[in-house]
């Protein structure tokens, strides 16, 4: 972060150097470092707000969140409270919790006494990360590809069928496509596993349908975004100039149009991650996968406050992180935007 020190001059400096230095240096200079720093600094309070709301919401719960159904003697209860730190003043508990969260300790699970929340989440992470990462990757490639094809063949049969598919993908929610895919390809055709997963053996057969279910709505949204933006870009002046210069159509498409047209997709990255996380909660339930989402629902139904709270904080952190990445990518990719 040392190169961000001369914040006031960072916007003026690149222009001077741009003529004399190499392409790499030019790209580096173009990165709006002050903006990125500011963007990171605003992400921290947002994260704090999430943790704070989660903490005080839990404390606002009727009764003691750690109370059990059994009647305890006052002595035992006092010991229990002291053990969990509940006898301290509220602000001390808050800062203690905050400190623990920063270190990755989300406290003990209330219903699963022998495990901590971090352990419970950690058990689910491999599955959730696998299906999440694959579906985002598939969504990006398939969505961008379909969008570009639809745009260059605008109003053709290919365009209409791609966009009808997109409309279907947007209108039909994950909790409908999931059971259907499971029924058709799992139960009826028997091509893939209809559900269930042995944690040690994550394989194509088990994970294909969940990943497909999770990716479909994102493919739909991204292809629509890409199509609209590509159509607009192909009509712009610089593309007309490129055509007039006699560049080949492929070069125009890949060097000139696509990089400019992909920007709306980049800014969609944040909402996409929200969609995938929400979707993963559904998909893991439909296909019976032991992921973070399934553990989250489990915690919510058994009223395991600490587990639900920890997962909300994790999800919040992920969403903020991806929004941050999207914004930074956008700032780096789009030279037109000046972040002052």
């Amino acid at each position, binding site marked *: 972060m040392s190169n961000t020190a001369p914040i006031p001059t960072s916007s003026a400096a690149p222009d001077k150097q741009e003529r004399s230095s190499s392409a790499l240096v030019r790209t580096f200079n173009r990165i709006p470092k002050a903006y990125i720093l500011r963007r990171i600094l605003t992400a921290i309070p947002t994260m704090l707000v999430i943790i704070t709301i989660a903490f005080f919401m839990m404390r606002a719960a009727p009764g003691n969140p750690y109370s059990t159904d059994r009647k305890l003697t006052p002595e035992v209860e006092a010991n229990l409270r002291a053990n969990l730190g509940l006898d301290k003043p509220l602000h001390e508990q808050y800062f203690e919790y905050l400190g623990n969260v920063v270190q990755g300790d989300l406290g003990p699970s209330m219903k699963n006494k022998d495990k901590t929340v971090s352990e419970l989440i950690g058990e689910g992470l491999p599955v959730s990360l696998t299906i999440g990462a694959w579906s985002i990757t598939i969504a990006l490639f398939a969505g961008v590809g379909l969008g570009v094809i639809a745009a260059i063949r605008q109003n053709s049969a290919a365009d209409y069928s791609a966009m009808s598919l997109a409309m279907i993908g947007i209108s039909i929610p994950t909790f409908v496509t999931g059971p259907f895919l*499971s029924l058709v390809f799992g139960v009826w055709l028997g091509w893939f596993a209809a559900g269930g997963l042995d944690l040690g053996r994550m394989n194509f057969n088990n994970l294909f349908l969940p990943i497909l279910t999770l990716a479909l709505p994102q493919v739909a949204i991204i292809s629509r975004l890409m199509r609209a933006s590509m159509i607009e870009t192909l009509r712009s002046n610089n593309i007309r100039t490129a055509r007039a210069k006699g560049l080949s159509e492929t070069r125009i498409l890949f060097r000139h149009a696509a990089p400019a047209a992909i920007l709306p997709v980049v800014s969609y990255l944040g909402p996409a991650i929200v969609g995938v996380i929400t979707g993963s909660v559904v998909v893991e339930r439909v296909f019976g996968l032991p992921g973070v989402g399934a553990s989250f629902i489990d915690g919510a139904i058994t009223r395991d*406050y600490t587990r*639900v709270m920890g997962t909300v904080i994790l999800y919040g952190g992920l*969403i903020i992180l991806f929004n941050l990445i999207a914004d930074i990518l956008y700032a780096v990719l789009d030279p037109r935007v000046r972040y002052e």
Partner: protein
Amino acid sequence: MTLASAPIERQQTLELAARKGRSLWDDSRRRLLSNKAAVASMIVLGVLVLIALIGPILWPHGYEHQYRDRLRIGPTLENFHLLGTDIYGRDMVARIMMGLRISLAVGAIATTVSLVIGVTWGAVAGFVGGRTDQLMMRTVDVIYAMPFIFFVILMTVVFGRSIFLIFLAIGAIEWLTMARIVRGQTLAIKEKEFVEAARAAGVGPWGIITRHILPNLLGPVAVYVTLTLPIVILQESFLSFIGLGVQEPLTSLGRLISDGQRELSDPWMLFGPAATMVLTLFCLNFIGDGLRDALDPKDR
């Protein structure tokens, strides 16, 4: 027609046009009505709303009545179980109609909540401007970055599951985009020449808001309301699907789909609710798209 009569006729047309001008709204209505998908969707949605309202009253089976001797019956004309019965022997048609009623009610109420909060917030921020605007929109930005649906889940865990809470909570999430749209529009409109002209002609701020800004906001707001409805219905269904929304014996489409997907060997329990849900969402999306094209033709 002779040469002499032509100007007169033209003048008559002009007078007619002056008397009954073709407003922006007339144009929009005509564009909307020429959109076949949107018109068909409006008809289907109208029928669905009607079914949701009066269907449960007219249907011979009650939605919570359990026929102990008719568990898991497939679609049949016998005893009028057109879409079969569920694992407790309750008639699926009756349950779907009830589920549709709840889902549509959640959609309508939560959208109204989001409409009221969003328009007020956005219009105030846009019209007052300056530091107030900055503060209000920063707040929106911060809330926007939060995993709100998960907070709703946290809320249901902490405060218990009540359908009323769900109405409020979902409405309270969805106002953010509305506020942004309204603020952007207000900012743009208040700098327009016709507002300046009105100001120059001595119209007060209240007159400018009601006569010039609000009517121009109506278009984008109407479009966004139709787009919010399916989102809100989806969110309620999501909550019900994972078991945190509407509780038994009351039901919603999401809840029915959730029950159905557990019984994949008897797939009619999934088909009925899923088809109803998808049909409703399709209609709302087509109407939203049609409305957007009709009100903002340059965005096609």
